[in-house]
């Protein structure tokens, strides 16, 4: 079939909301964009295990410990679903992981901030997972079938993550003065990085946006960010806490909350590797991978040995 026809079929599917599936013809750039986005999303899940895993051993009650372990384990599962859907595009998990470990591939910058107190577990659940969920709900309708299906599965499991985070903060907000202070401090530290998770402002870009056209993305950064701010302003009242932004104000005309300017220098610095924990996060992933090498090698060697034995017995 001539290339123009294939492109036409592809564009028609996108136009008519028909999912693109692994064996369908797709433009190279569509494939690459998806591999990059899905694998970065997977890396974010896996690196995201570290700041929270950090508090598993110190969780303040057995119930909280169980919830936290289950949650961090879910993130491993989500990373795996995502790697699995990226693999349908012809990129192996090994390649993707190697790119993460070499520093070539990126992951969400939010995980380069440290988790300093127990209240951070609540703040991450409420704000970071809350921001991620907005993205992920949107991605359930993304045009690439395996990615959309992974997102549906993930969203189903994620709903408990944000709820447990908020509930955990709620308990702190009703606790001792020290707990209240811990709660406010965590919100102060995680608020701005959470807003940064949505990426640069829409006005930064002047070119046409291919990701939106291809329906890989379905809402702009600013739309999602606004949605997030509007929600958080309501929710923080329930906690009796404040958000660290003096410019936060209801705008009657827009029917949205106005908010202050994000520190974009900080954003790009963290992306470029200068966040408080970039180095530690990558080091931890590399260490786990390197120290696991002999295990992976032995398991495959054993499987090969057994399969050869079976063949010999059959012969």
């Amino acid at each position: 079939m001539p290339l123009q026809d294939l492109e036409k079929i592809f564009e028609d599917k996108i136009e008519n909301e028909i999912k693109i599936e692994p064996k369908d013809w797709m433009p190279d750039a569509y494939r690459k964009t998806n591999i990059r986005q899905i694998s970065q999303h997977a890396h974010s899940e896996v690196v995201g295990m570290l700041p929270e895993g950090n508090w598993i051993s110190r969780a303040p009650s057995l119930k909280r410990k169980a919830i936290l372990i289950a949650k961090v384990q879910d993130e491993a599962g989500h990373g795996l679903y995502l790697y699995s859907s990226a693999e349908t595009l012809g990129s192996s998990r090994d390649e993707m992981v190697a790119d993460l470990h070499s520093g070539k591939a990126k992951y969400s910058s939010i995980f380069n901030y440290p988790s300093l107190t127990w209240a951070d577990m609540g703040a991450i659940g409420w704000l970071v997972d809350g921001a991620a969920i907005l993205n992920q709900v949107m991605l359930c309708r993304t045009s690439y079938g395996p990615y959309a299906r992974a997102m549906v599965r993930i969203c189903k499991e994620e709903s408990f993550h944000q709820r447990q985070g908020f509930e955990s903060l709620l308990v702190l907000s009703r606790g001792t003065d020290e707990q209240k202070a811990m709660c406010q401090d965590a919100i102060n530290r995680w608020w701005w990085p959470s807003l940064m998770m949505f990426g640069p402002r829409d006005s930064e870009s002047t070119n046409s946006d291919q990701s939106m056209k291809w329906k890989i993305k379905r809402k702009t950064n600013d739309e999602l960010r606004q949605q997030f701010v509007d929600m958080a302003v309501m929710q923080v009242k329930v906690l009796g806490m404040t958000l660290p932004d003096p410019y936060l104000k209801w705008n009657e005309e827009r029917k949205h909350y106005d908010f202050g300017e994000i520190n974009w220098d900080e954003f790009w610095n963290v992306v470029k590797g200068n966040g408080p924990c970039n180095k530690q996060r990558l080091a931890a992933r590399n260490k786990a991978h390197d120290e696991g090498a002999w295990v992976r090698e032995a398991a495959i060697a054993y499987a090969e040995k057994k399969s050869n034995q079976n063949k010999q017995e059959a012969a």
Partner: protein
Amino acid sequence: MKIHISKYYYGDIPEEKAGGFQDQKSNVDKNSWPLWEVFVRSKQGLDHKHVGSLHATDPVMAIENARDVYTRRQEGVSIWVVESKFITASNPEEAGELYEPAADKIYRHPTFYELPDEVGHM
């Protein structure tokens, strides 16, 4: 086809903007584990449904990994795994010749037949 990707999203930072420390160690694992496709029967009476894939060294490990990864919330009562390389998929470009002939065989569908009401449910 001209491609501009100009917005950066959560989990989507373009490489040209990335800097930082690259220790240039990009050796792909030579001992990578094979990929398996996983099918889960969510309850008795239903078909096994494809849920995704995972890596494992042998069928037993693949089943166990599938249990841990895809049924953490009691999503299944039965699991099938098959090494991905053994799956043959139809080619979407042949979809026309494979599936469209069925479109005009409406006599295969029960609603094709009009029966008098007295027959009752059939």
